[in-house]
């Protein structure tokens, strides 16, 4: 009884303004998710091209950059749409502030998207020789087929910082303790591996079984490591009182506990077991199912991790 009268444990806010709600919402989740696909297909595609003959994966040369192009445009669109002053996005290029990871990221992502557009154009036009036969741009792309192989290594190299810079933005968001962990960098990289392998699985029906086995292996590894890292944060977080307070939202009874565990079970655990089983037996349907639920789970996991630190009062 007496412990309830101690001043240190009995302080209640009796008048204050409303706490701002979630500021970075589903658009930023979608932005991060789409970027993971956009860079992930390039990273995993490069790994496959290194391991296998490209003739055994007939559509990879044009579908890989095309998927990346679409995903990156979704990412850029929602980056723009989420701004409160979207028309002023140009200021990032006219008045760049280089200490900001948002600026560096925007420049790198724009350059990356430009190069991917070039790859998609060259790959697509050379795959479909009869498409737009009289178009000058299409013909230029066909006549510069060798450019694809020349710029591809630079694109793969650039895909790494484009994947990782969001973790640096989160690190610069110093009000949100949960995002301050160095593990965010690895989570971003694993998310790209997961999203890249899962997306390529969806177009790998006609590929040789060995390439699909590699994709299943990458999916299994990235889901396993991603799950372990989330569990590490969940159980071992000792970073600060704020991080502990944030994690209460996903602990038992927390507002986001349900979404978090759906993401963990259906997005990481289930795809891991399905992918492992597909390595042994080349079951395309099982692998496709694993890929789809992994992509959905990744979105949900990112959504939870983005929103929960924004629910805490900061002052």
């Amino acid at each position, binding site marked *: 009884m007496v412990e309830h009268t101690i001043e240190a444990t009995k302080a209640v806010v009796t008048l204050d303004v409303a706490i701002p709600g979630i500021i970075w919402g589903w658009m930023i989740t979608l932005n991060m998710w789409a970027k993971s696909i956009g860079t992930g297909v390039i990273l995993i595609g490069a790994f496959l091209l290194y391991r296998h003959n490209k003739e055994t994966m007939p559509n990879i040369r044009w579908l890989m950059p095309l998927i990346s192009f679409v995903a990156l445009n979704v990412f850029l669109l929602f980056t723009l749409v989420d*701004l409160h002053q979207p028309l*002023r996005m140009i200021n990032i290029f006219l008045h760049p502030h280089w200490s900001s990871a948002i600026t560096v990221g925007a420049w790198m992502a724009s350059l990356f998207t430009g190069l991917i557009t070039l790859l998609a154009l060259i790959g697509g036009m050379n795959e479909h020789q009869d498409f737009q036969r009289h178009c000058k741009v299409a013909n230029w792309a066909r006549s510069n087929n060798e450019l694809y192989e020349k710029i591809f290594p630079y694109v793969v190299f650039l895909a790494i910082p484009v994947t990782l810079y969001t973790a640096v933005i989160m690190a610069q968001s110093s009000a949100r303790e949960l995002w301050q962990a160095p593990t965010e960098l690895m989570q971003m990289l694993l998310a790209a591996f997961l999203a890249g392998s899962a997306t390529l699985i969806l177009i790998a029906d006609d590929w040789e079984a060995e390439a699909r086995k590699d994709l299943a292996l990458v999916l299994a590894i990235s889901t396993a490591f991603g799950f372990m890292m989330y569990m590490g944060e969940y159980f071992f977080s000792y970073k600060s009182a704020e991080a502990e307070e944030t994690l209460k939202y996903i602990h038992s009874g927390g507002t986001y506990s349900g979404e978090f565990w759906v993401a963990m079970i259906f997005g990481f655990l289930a795809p891991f077991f399905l992918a492992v089983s597909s390595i042994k037996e080349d079951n395309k349907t099982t692998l496709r199912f694993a890929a789809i639920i992994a992509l959905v789970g990744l979105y949900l996991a990112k959504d939870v991790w983005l929103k929960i630190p924004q629910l805490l009062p900061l002052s």
Partner: protein
Amino acid sequence: MKLGFLVDLNLCMGCKGCEIACKVENEVPLSSWRLRVKYIDVGTFPQTTRNFTPLRCNHCENAPCVRICPVSALHYLENGIVNIDSNRCIGCAGCMMACPYGAIYMDPETNTADKCTYCAHRIESGMMPSCVVACPVEANIFGDVDDATSHISRYIMEHQKNGGVQVRKPEKHTEPKHYYVGGGNQTLNPLAHERIEGYNLFNNITHLDHVGDPNHSILDRFIGGGHTHYSNKSLADEKIGSKTKEHETQGGH
């Protein structure tokens, strides 16, 4: 010159005069605050005390908001003030994610980030910030912390024995230029006190549905048939109006 603020919480009586003066001086829209006074009740009846804590931008020397702003809309002035150029702001809300003190808001009228500037426009004209002028007990002390003879420097020197001068969240290493005398963990640490939903003194709004114009995006402009222009009046009609109706249906006074 490095301008700083000190609030003596032993003097503050929670009149909210500074809050209102700030609102009027800077035309801060409804649902937004550059400066607010928070009430915290400590203890168990009958041994209770009510504490008042004015909260505003800390004008940090190592400001995370300045670092993350992609277009330098947030920048330092020569006198140490962290200023904001609303005309350059793109509304990315990165600064709101970075500020550990929750001092930045999205202005629902301009759709840009905004915050306390220590009334930089008044200081330029040789005047004191409006909150300093309005305070009836001189709890707000403002001045040059680089000048050892200034009122604020002398006040700090006088009270700094035994940790008498505090800043909020020193562990963040932001080097705030906003100090408190008479504060404690319960008044300065937002996690040290409980926020009970719906039991505030004069209102029951504990979370905003959205910061800034809820229809701010390009998609809304295409789908929703235009951009909603918010003013104090429209916000009052929308937010307070609906709350009043709800309150009335619940049998409120």
